[in-house]
């Protein structure tokens, strides 16, 4: 391939579909081998939300990377992938590692061209952007985990909402935080029940 005069970003645009396909495969191969086929082949977005989301969102992410830092900051694609990884059976490091695998894919796919046009500085710059994306992924991952813990905490009050509301109304000097933690057990005691 004649690469003369081409910059790294031009190469990335030209080889976009191959890079995305390899990146997608690299991510899907993080799953157990018996699952990989399903995630790769099932194209219905409702039958295979994980495969579909990853495939759609990495495409958008790649586009954002080409546009630069501002586009990445506004992107929701990263969050949509991380939201899935954060509840699946991955450690935090593994859950965000898919971002780094793009570096490997680019090197494998464009190694020859990068060498021939000496686009090392551009590559380092682009890799720095991937690093930034990874840091953003870490933030997203933490947000998801915090959200899960918030949801768990909220469940305690939601589940017995009416009971708690009522318990508060019949306590002479209710301390809100105490009551919120007390759960239904207190109410049942108030009502003369056996509790649990």
């Amino acid at each position, binding site marked *: 391939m004649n690469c003369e005069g081409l910059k790294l970003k031009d190469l990335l645009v030209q080889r976009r579909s191959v890079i995305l396909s390899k990146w997608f495969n690299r991510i899907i191969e993080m799953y157990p081998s018996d699952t990989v086929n399903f995630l790769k082949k099932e194209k219905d977005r409702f039958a295979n939300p994980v495969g579909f989301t990853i495939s759609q969102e990495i495409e958008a992410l790649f586009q954002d990377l080409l546009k630069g830092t501002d586009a990445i900051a506004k992107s929701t694609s990263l969050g949509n992938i991380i939201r899935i990884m954060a509840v699946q059976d991955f450690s935090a490091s593994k859950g965000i590692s898919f971002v780094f695998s793009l570096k490997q894919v680019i090197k494998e796919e464009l190694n020859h061209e990068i060498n021939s046009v000496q686009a090392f500085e551009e590559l380092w710059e682009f890799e720095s952007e991937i690093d930034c994306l990874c840091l953003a992924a870490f933030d997203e991952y933490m947000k998801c985990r915090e959200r899960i813990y918030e949801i*768990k905490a909220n469940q305690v009050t939601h589940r017995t909402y009416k*009971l708690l509301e009522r318990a508060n109304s019949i306590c002479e000097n209710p301390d809100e935080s105490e009551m919120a933690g007390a759960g239904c057990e207190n109410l049942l005691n108030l009502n003369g029940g056996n509790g649990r």
Partner: protein
Amino acid sequence: MLEKMMKPEELAKIDHTPPIRGWMDPYVKFKKGAWCYSAAPKNLKYLDLPNPREWSPDQENWKLPENWKEIILDGIRERIEKYRSFRLFMDICVRCGACADKCHYFIGSGDPKNMPVLRAELLRSVYRKEFTPAGKYLGKWGGGRDLTIDVIKEWFYYFFQCTECRRCSVFCPYGIDTAEVTMHVRELLNLIGVNINWVCEPAANCFRTGNHLGVPPHAFKDNVEFAVDDLKEITGIEVNAPIHKKGAEVLVIVPSADYFANPHYYTFLGYLALFHEIGLDYTFSAYASEGGNFGLFHSKDMLKRLNAKIYAEAKRLGVKWILGCECGHMWRVMHQYMDTINGPADFLEEPVSPITGTRFENAATTKMVHICEFTADLIYNKKIKLDPRRNDHLRVTFHDSCNPARAMGLIEEPRYVLKHVCNHFYEMPENTIREQTFCCGSGSGLGSDENMEMRLRGGLPRANAVNYVKEKHGVNLLACICAIDKATLPPLLEYWVPGVEVGGIHELVGNALVMKGEQERTTDLRGEPLPVKEEDSKDV
């Protein structure tokens, strides 16, 4: 110090591909957030269940009885002899894979042992080894596997990751009911005291007080009166909500969450408003104060024990028939098992709506009618006045709850009601609703907080379809007719699709219902301001 410092490119070459491990090799890593706590000994003792003790799935020693293997194998033998379906399910699967990618847990987690076929193989392999010549003599080559402690751990992990939703069964060309396979394995595990607290505690409470939370009769009465007061505040009408009224025509059975949990409570207000408006002669029972039945997730014996109160109370109160409200698994029990395990209910009459005269022939043996059938019939016969504009602030989609949809075929009635009580109703994609509906991911006793990550994985396919209609139509309410859905879909949507609330169909009925003599409504049943002033109420 490291002998050899790795170069950056070597460090970057981390292989994230999981090691290939054959499915026959039992292996479970108990990661927090993906399993339920074990049953507390006090609950097992209360229910006279075997091997009550303190233990935890993530500990090495599960404190099983010494002869645990013998107990399990005897249990399998007993069930093979007793249930023809069980033997059939063990023998006829050809591993075609039609069910493999249909389970919400598989789709959301990517764990191959959540493929229904493979989950069932975890039991089938032991069955083959112990009960078929091929497995006995050929071992692994014949698809057989030894029963070991690790297999028991694997059973616990994966059969408490099946919500018994039966979506996989819809696709099985042989009609294998994988939910029943799960039920059998859970029964077997219970024989050696391997069970979860979120099933056993509600079961113990239910056995003691008639409902899962353990609300005693006087507290039940207080809660109902509280709801009557709340409804009066909204509508200006003080309704009568009879409890233990002997000789009433209808016994009304609700899931207990309806009278204490959010958002179920608003549906309960809807029932009260509707029953008052049509002048239904009904009664609640403080003893049969729970339609749900966590015995279904434990064993057939527990199911029978907890269900017995329904017919007993119907008989004691001298009603003619039973009206069951919005609950999911309750309807699998009522529709498929109650008649044979605790019937025949020959002291009851074939249900006839006292308002329309419609005979519910479909409930001729159980004598129990679903409230959506009942309300759809009222609307069809133009017996109630509705103003759907009162729900105009809501853009509604409907989640078919697994058991009403797949275990009793209740698919059109809820939609018929919804289309009459709200103006903005949008269906989710076809392969995610009706008999193909995706589970909430938290049914069959798996809705505990400690199991949240697993629930979020299992609920992903459902949430994904909700997200689609949210983006396409601006949907902001997911309506459903299951108490577990109402409890577990809100956190699921909070994570996956923030901005979509969950509600019951009779909450929307209650909003739209124009009651004789009511004050001008300024809020819906949740206390949210109404979108329009009510004028020109629409007659239906």
